[in-house]
């Protein structure tokens, strides 16, 4: 497959995945983790 076509497919795919993930509330899950102290990150959990 030529690289131009691959880039277009990946850009479109990435955008679709972000929309799909947001619809499944994944962004909220990311926020829930990022807005509290992550015990694993700091070496306690």
């Amino acid at each position: 497959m030529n690289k131009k076509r691959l880039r277009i497919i990946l850009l479109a795919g990435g955008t679709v995945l972000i929309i799909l993930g947001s619809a499944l509330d994944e962004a909220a899950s990311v926020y829930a983790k990022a807005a509290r102290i992550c015990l694993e990150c700091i070496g306690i959990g």
Partner: protein
Amino acid sequence: MNRKLVQYISALLSNANLNGFLSGRIYQGASKHVCVPGLNCYSCPAAIGACPLGSLQTILASSQYTISYYVTGTLLLFGVFMGRFICGWLCPFGLIQELLNKLPSLTLIIPRWAGYIKYLILIIFVLLLPVFFVNSLGMGDPSFCKYICPAGTLEGGIPLLASHQDLRDAAGSLFLIKLLILIMVVIFSVISFRPFCKIICPLGAIYGLFNPISMYRFQVDPVKCIGCGTCAQNCKMGVAMYKEPDSWECIRCGDCRTGCPAGAITTTFQIGNEPIKNTN
């Protein structure tokens, strides 16, 4: 463009809540829904965005999801636009290692094969353990964050433990292991260039895969190139630009380009593959 300046601005933009260091509290604004491109711990009190690597593991480890569409999509877009330009120009943890490397010291050369270790770490600690090493509720751990990540220890662990007695009381052997890893990364960063990026970082491993197809990339004009190898000598990541412009290890820092005596190396940002213009 001055790369150092861009690195400082990016580190500051990712960590704009400087007040958090004084209050010891994590930023809770809406921007934490969104991943920043580089490795920047969301448990850093100054961080205003989410770490893409931590977010990926969190979603994979939860019992609710089997794949992370949101974070995978974000990484795809970052990768296709920029590849490892993110490492060279935008990642705060890359900047920290570069600053440490400015200290006078012996020089340790890291062999190229060591670069494959980060792909093993990506597969085991980021993709497999969070999904398959689960408790009775079906929940796993963000294993790279938990057992390895020195960025988490430096940016989150140290400032938060410094300001919270209860967290200091809770710190045990896991914290000591992570602290030891951080100390090793600091020492090796003084004596070699970006050892964490070269050997360990799963995020750099992911972005490296995009280098051959990213819209921002380097090109070597075969007509102008005299094959002198100056680019390879100037590269602190061990890349021979004139032979492998799409190398997974290239962080697009541009040192090879500015040092090329023939002016054969150019950058491009495009969706198609236009042939290199010969300006002679």
